[in-house]
């Protein structure tokens, strides 16, 4: 063996020694020098975060009465890790719990299955939370049930019964407001992913905002102001052993309760509006249909009422009928309830007719078309012929109830709601613009005015899913024809044999319609223009849009942005922000025309179509003058739509009130009396006496001051003669009722 080999072997051994030295050095560094870092990392490795949900903020009416709050409920939960420790994966445990809370075993078992795991039922029946989160199986446990569980802990390992906050809609003074409040629902995986992406983009990666078991606003104010109401959950970091059992608490941050939403709604008026709307519906159902010789009663399938502050656009009351109890959503809506509020038979109680229902506005629309006529050159000071029918292109178009009035002033035309005068305005204007040969983009003053009043698009109300309404102008007709001509052309050939079997007359009408639509359905005809002028035809609006139109006329031309949110307040009483959406603009109507229109509508109440309801109600118009306009919308195949649009006081107006009853007959007969009653509440009228202090909201104007929120979370109503501190049971422990400075003491 050579010396070279020996030498190289020595070198190799030195190399090996240095490798071992390297290992020991690195080992020393990792285990001794940097050990603390790794111990921290190890602790994080073995931790789980438990989210303590924040109490959701209350939704208050304008005076601080809770429209949505939290009640404490006894929630029974089962720990999943405790279940897994059982030999039978917790089957027997679940059976015992089900027995105590009185639910079917299988139902409780399903609730404990993690969504997406094998054998789990589809959401929302499965558990959508973290595996380390206790799984709630009921939020309606009684104290007796809770005691059974808590006193026999050895029989119920991992089962807890805890007081937890649950949403509640107390309906103060009977104010339901279901469509405005909305409801909560479990967050979906898609939403969680969306929020995670949004958080990433904001760089707020570690923000725990939402998790699988959270409820988020699904509709109404609950959804619109979800971010404000939700608050921030508390995070408890637990150390977890390898079995997933909890071995200690590493850190804890308390949840930040959600902020309060103060609305413009006055619960007292809201309750009255709902009552009056219901009264109108019931009145209609006892009234015979004038078009069917009074033999058939009116169906009055649905209705809506809007009370708006004309100066700010604040919604003081808004109601839709049919409605439902918003509390059915709490704790997950049952299949039966869900079916009930979405069924055609019940006329879709989940839809708000006030801001989602679209109806032909009929003669209330003359508030829009009169200024348009003025712009088209028709003076309000001139006289016009009001025949019983007006010929358009050879076809006579009749006045409502075929009544003729002869030559009358414009004022009289408004008072009696003469349609033929408006036919003339629209038809002549249409002819002047070229009639059927008018340019595609011709600016028709009538449709342009409708646009200027904010129709055909959402008003910007702070509620989700608001309807657009529709302005049936030239562009719309063309677009509609393009979308439907294939259907109509096919029908023009085949006819309507299936309809003909039952109703040959209707089938003939439909065939004729199909033929016309197929050939030149795009044409904006003279009849379309005439229909538009009286708010008939394909033009539709929501009651809210009409309330905004009347608010614009009442306030001198400002197109307000309707809103229900008034302010966001922190639970300790600090004002977070006011909600004062800027107006959408001004309507292009001169002051003189607006003044004239307000005056004209005031006289409608005194001597015109609006006279009846207020006269019968013995309303003191001398003290509180009211401007009104009635509407009776004709809908093919249905009974007429009853409209009653108004504002008051006619001088320096404060409120606009619009009521609509679908298949409700005439405006003055069905909606009018209810609107008159509402004004009595709005201005504190009893008999001939006006007592603004007794009005709702008090003072004859919307409540200006914000309710005071005390540090303990209780809410104090703004001063009023009989204002008291109103105690809000929520998460705050009950204390003695007290009367104090904030409220001024009982009257």
């Amino acid at each position: 063996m050579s010396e070279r080999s020996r030498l190289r072997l020595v070198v190799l051994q030195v190399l090996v020694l240095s490798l071992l030295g390297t290992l020991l050095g690195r080992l020393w560094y990792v285990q001794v020098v940097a050990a603390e870092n790794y111990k921290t990392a190890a602790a994080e490795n073995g931790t789980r975060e438990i989210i303590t949900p924040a109490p959701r903020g209350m939704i208050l009416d304008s005076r601080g009465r809770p429209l949505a709050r939290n009640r404490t409920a006894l929630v029974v939960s089962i720990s999943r890790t405790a279940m897994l420790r059982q030999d039978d994966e917790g089957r027997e445990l679940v059976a015992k719990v089900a027995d105590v809370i009185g639910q079917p075993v299988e139902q409780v078992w399903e609730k404990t299955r993690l969504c997406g795991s094998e054998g789990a039922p589809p959401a929302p029946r499965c558990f959508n939370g973290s595996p380390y989160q206790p799984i709630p199986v009921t939020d309606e446990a009684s104290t007796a049930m809770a005691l059974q569980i808590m006193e026999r802990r050895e029989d119920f390992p991992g089962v807890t019964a805890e007081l937890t906050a649950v949403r509640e809609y107390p309906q103060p003074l009977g104010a339901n407001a279901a469509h405005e409040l909305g409801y909560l629902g479990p967050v979906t995986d898609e939403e969680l992913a969306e929020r995670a992406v949004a958080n990433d983009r904001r760089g707020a990666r570690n923000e725990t905002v939402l998790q699988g078991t959270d409820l988020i606003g699904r509709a109404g104010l609950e959804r619109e102001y979800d971010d404000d109401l939700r608050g921030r959950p508390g995070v408890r970091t637990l150390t977890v052993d390898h079995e997933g059992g909890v071995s200690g608490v590493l850190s804890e941050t308390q949840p930040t309760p959600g902020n309060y939403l103060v609305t413009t709604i006055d619960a007292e008026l809201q309750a009255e509006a709902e009552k009056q709307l219901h009264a109108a519906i019931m009145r209609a159902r006892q009234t015979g249909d004038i078009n069917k010789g009074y033999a058939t009663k009116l169906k009055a399938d649905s209705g809506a009422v809007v009370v708006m502050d004309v100066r700010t656009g604040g919604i003081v009351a808004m109601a839709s009928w049919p409605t439902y109890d918003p509390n059915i959503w709490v704790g997950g809506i049952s299949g039966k309830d869900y079916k009930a509020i979405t069924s055609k038979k019940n006329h879709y109680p989940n839809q708000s007719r006030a801001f989602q229902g679209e109806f032909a506005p009929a003669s209330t629309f003359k508030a829009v078309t009169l200024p348009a006529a003025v712009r088209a050159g028709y003076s309000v000071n001139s006289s016009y012929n009001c025949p019983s029918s007006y010929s358009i292109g050879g076809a006579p178009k009749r006045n409502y109830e075929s009544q003729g009035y002869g030559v009358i002033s414009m004022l009289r035309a408004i008072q009696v709601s003469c349609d033929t005068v408006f036919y003339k305005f629209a038809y002549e204007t249409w002819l002047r613009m070229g009639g059927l040969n008018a340019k595609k983009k011709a600016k028709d003053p009538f449709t342009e005015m409708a646009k200027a009043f904010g129709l055909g698009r959402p008003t910007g109300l702070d509620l989700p899913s608001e309807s657009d309404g529709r302005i049936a102008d030239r562009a719309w007709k063309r677009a509609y024809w393009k979308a439907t001509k294939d259907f109509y052309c096919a029908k023009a050939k085949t006819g309507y044999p299936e309809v003909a079997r039952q109703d040959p007359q209707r089938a003939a009408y439909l065939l004729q319609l199909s033929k016309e639509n197929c050939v030149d359905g795009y044409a904006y005809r003279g009849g379309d223009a005439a229909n538009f002028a009286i708010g008939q035809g394909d033009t539709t609006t929501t009651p809210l849009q009409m309330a905004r139109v009347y608010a614009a006329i009442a306030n001198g031309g400002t197109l307000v942005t309707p809103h229900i949110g008034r302010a966001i307040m922190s639970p300790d009483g600090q004002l977070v922000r006011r909600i004062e959406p800027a107006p959408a603009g001004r309507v292009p109507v001169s002051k003189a025309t607006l003044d004239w229109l307000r005056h004209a509508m005031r006289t409608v109440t005194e001597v015109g179509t609006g006279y009846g309801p207020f006269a019968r109600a013995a309303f003191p118009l001398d003290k509180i003058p009211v401007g009104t306009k009635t509407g009776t919308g004709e809908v093919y195949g249905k009974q007429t739509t009853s409209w009653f649009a108004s504002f008051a006081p006619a001088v320096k107006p404060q409120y606009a009130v619009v009521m609509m009853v679908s298949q409700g007959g005439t405006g003055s007969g069905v909606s009018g009396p209810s609107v008159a009653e509402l004004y009595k509440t709005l201005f504190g009228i009893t008999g001939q006496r006006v007592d603004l202090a007794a009005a709702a909201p008090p003072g004859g104007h919307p409540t200006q001051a914000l309710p005071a929120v005390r540090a303990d979370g209780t809410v104090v109503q703004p001063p009023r003669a009989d204002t008291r501190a109103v105690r809000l049971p929520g998460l705050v422990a009950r204390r003695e009722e007290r009367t104090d400075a904030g409220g001024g003491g009982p009257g």
Partner: protein
Amino acid sequence: MTVGYRPTPYTVPPPRRGSRLLHRDSALRRMDWTLLVAVLALCAIGAALVWSATKQAAIDGGDDPQAFLKKHILNVGIGLVLGVVASVFDYRMLRAYAPVVYVLSLLGLMAVLSPLGTTINGSHSWIVLPAGFSVQPSEFAKVALVVGMSMLLAEKRDAEDEPRDMDVVLALVFAAVPFALVMLQPDLGTAMVVCALVLGLIAVSGAPIRWVVGLVVAALLVAVVAVQTGMLKDYQIDRFRAFYDPAADPKGAGFNVRQSLIAVGSGGMDGQGLFQGAQTQGKFVPAQQTDFIFTVAGEELGFVGAALVVALLGLVLWRAGRIAMQAEDLFGRLVATGILCWFAFQSFENIGMTLGIMPVTGVPLPFVSYGGSSMFANLIAVGLLQNVHMRRYS
């Protein structure tokens, strides 16, 4: 038993075996007891660590918590028997059997690539046998390679001669075949061990220095080209990338390194106690009873226990070096040197990746990791070391 070949006339074979077992010249007396004790200590520590690493998973899975421990002890037992067999025959006789062992190992490696082979952890390295046993032929190939290359490099020469270029080329070709088969699996870890072993053998054989330098340069070039041309699988490159930046992808390639470092680091000086390591028992570290067994030592036995493991391995390597130094002929020296390089590189690679200073490649920690083939091969190698040692000065 030792009939036939008698290397020197001075060796007096015991007339009746057993009666003079403790005689000054007896095999037992001439054995390297330090080496044996160090190896047995490592096996014992390994058994405890394997038990700790597998107990919880077995309980969770409803299996026998001692299942891995029992199999591990069985592996050690079989390995020791194989080691004794490897030490009893005079190693010089192995020259005769080397071609047979070599061909057998090649057949084994080829069988792995045939449909008989099974993929575990991304490497197509196993042959699964009935009754829950599996064989990893590449482990045995290491033994074959050591013996075969030693034979080629020490063959046909007087003791003082150095291998000529032709011998080196022949030895390299000899090594290239199993190396290529291992790379095809692909088993990067074993391939790297093979490289280290070949390099050490050629260097210590006394071959011209240009071969040593040339091979080092070639190895580096191959590494660069392999990465550049995508010869390596993506996950292999990711493992290397995770090596220099473990935080880059903490859920993916860097996960093993990160979890491994957390486990070792949280052990501190004294460790958390056997069966007490939160990371180990929480099963945060993957492949913990095999490639990442050292993390159990680090976390549960602390610096004291982990350093003891390193020290025992150092002891084994020192004894292997000493045996190579004292070997009677070049063949014996080269066998010992090959085993030294194998153990040294594999220990450094395994512990180094656990500590984040080497890329993650799947090689077991000698004597400590769970795994039959590896244990058998290691103990056979120890038997060969003892064999060379017992027959020194003879």
